[in-house]
């Protein structure tokens, strides 16, 4: 059993704990749905080709997916780490065989399942409400998974370095909102000042958005990276970032006071 058993036990407890918080479950799924309704059905894409939503509906699929791939891990991990710290749970876990990395893997699995379900709901709603025509690429699965790993690592750091649950949630919102709109998701590069374009490349979400777009909406003409196919190149970059953020996130989880 060993490592697998520990991860399974932790993930099982995390999953049960989550699904029994009805408001948390409801708003986890309600948040992306309401965004799709507002952006996709009420604001809608401008048919004249101007304004905020000037692209084809399929262009915004990565943005809608990002509402869960980005927000859910950041806020859930941030508050989960803070909650564990406040309840001295890490002090207890530090004296069990469960390692910090195993704890983070377990929490990431829980987040991945939640986000996979929410992602499916988003795809169905985007197609139904906006009429987006997308390719149902199998690449969506690794992109969502790697994105969740990446942002769970960042969320763990937020929870570890803030001093309360309130602080963790506020910090996650402060980081997630700018990233959501400045990572080639809802706002194209052409709509941003020229000097800002290099900064877009600093956001991990940019590579998620470019890769998912290349996989689901080939007509967008997502550029290759150093001659490598954009789907492959962007998942590679995102995976590299995910390895770093996951390692830093696991390391940041408090073992001692």
């Amino acid at each position, binding site marked *: *059993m*060993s490592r697998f*058993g*520990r991860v*399974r*036990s*932790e993930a*099982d*407890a*995390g999953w*049960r*704990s989550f699904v*029994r*918080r009805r408001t948390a479950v409801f708003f986890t799924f309600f948040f992306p749905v309401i965004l799709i309704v507002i952006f996709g059905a009420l604001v809608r894409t401008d048919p004249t080709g101007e304004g905020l939503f000037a692209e084809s509906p399929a262009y915004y699929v990565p943005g809608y997916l990002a509402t869960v791939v980005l927000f859910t891990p950041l806020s859930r991990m941030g508050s989960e780490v803070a909650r564990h710290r*406040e*309840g*001295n*749970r890490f*002090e*207890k*876990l*530090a*004296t*069990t*065989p*469960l390692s910090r990395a195993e704890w983070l893997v377990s929490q990431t699995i829980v987040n991945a399942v939640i986000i996979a379900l929410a992602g499916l709901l988003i795809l169905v709603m985007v197609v139904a409400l906006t009429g987006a025509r997308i390719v149902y690429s199998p690449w969506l699965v690794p992109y969502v998974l790697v994105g969740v790993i990446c942002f769970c690592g960042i969320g763990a750091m937020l929870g570890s370095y803030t001093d309360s649950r309130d602080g963790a949630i506020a910090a996650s919102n402060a980081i997630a909102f700018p990233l959501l709109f400045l990572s080639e998701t809802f706002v194209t590069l052409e709509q941003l000042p020229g000097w800002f374009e290099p900064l877009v490349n600093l956001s991990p979400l940019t590579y998620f958005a470019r890769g998912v777009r290349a996989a689901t909406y080939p007509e967008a003409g997502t550029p290759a990276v150093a001659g490598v196919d954009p789907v492959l190149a962007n998942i590679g970059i995102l995976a590299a970032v995910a390895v770093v953020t996951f390692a830093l996130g696991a390391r940041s989880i408090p*073992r*001692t*006071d």
Partner: protein
Amino acid sequence: MEAVVDATDLEKAYGETVALSGASLAVERGEVFALIGPNGAGKTTLVRALTGTTTPDAGTVRILGESPTAVDRATLGVLPQDFSPPDRLTARELVAYYAGLYDDPRDPDDVLADVGVVDAEDTWYENLSGGQQRRVCVGSTLVNDPDVLFLDEPTTGIDPAGRRTVWRLIEELAAAGTTVLLTTHDMAEAERLADRVGLLADGSIVAEGTPESLVTEYGGANRLTIETEAEPDAFAGLEYPTERVARSHAPRASSGQSGIVVRDVPPAEIGVVVDFLEAHDLEYTGLSWAEPDLEDVYLSLADETELERTNRLGEPAVAESTPAEDAVQPGETT
């Protein structure tokens, strides 16, 4: 015999606050060691240093011959103070969750039976009473059948019957060879469970020994408490040292009333004191006689710390002694 828990000259400060200043202790296999001391004395910091969840600034710790971070964690059971496990899980799910973190865990049902929460095993943790919650937390430390058990205030919030269940459990574990280090504010708990007691004050252990030896050394004289409103001067003619105990500092007065404590009265001489009361028309509502116990040790050694903390050192807050005060043993409540 090599100590299972061995700490030497531990020091730890949080900014300018000194939590540990040269604390040392050694606990042998199968021994129950109770740490007592006032709030803020450093008990929790010491437990954390022993379990590797805080790093001391100086000093060494060995658990089963290893450093706390290198020791096989499957051999440890730790109950932190103010511990709150994951919510929205039943008592059984929580015990099963912690059991799942070990390779060879005990059956969660057996653990729940041991801590006496079988009837509430399907109740969410947050819906359990405070005492039941604490019992589940104690259960979470037993799932791996640990060789060394650290319990930081294990019976806080547990009712008397439940407390005795936990006490019996600890006694059985110790009898089976488990080494137990616990902290407590309950002197009866320490006196019943501990093979040895260490009193921690201001970050260091100021007294250590068996409960009996500590009582002999620091417990002071036996005491006859007279529940009366009479003034101390009225007892000047008694051949025994007396002192007035104020209402808020009269833990030994059976009704909580203020009274006079007469020390060093042998049981056979109680009648002499009664005769004195009647001869001098001193009204009283009750008499109680008690031998010194661990609480007296605690009060004699720790009360000064409490008075310093409340800026009352030097005030006659605890007792107003009669001229016989000189006869009171050093370290007694003054």
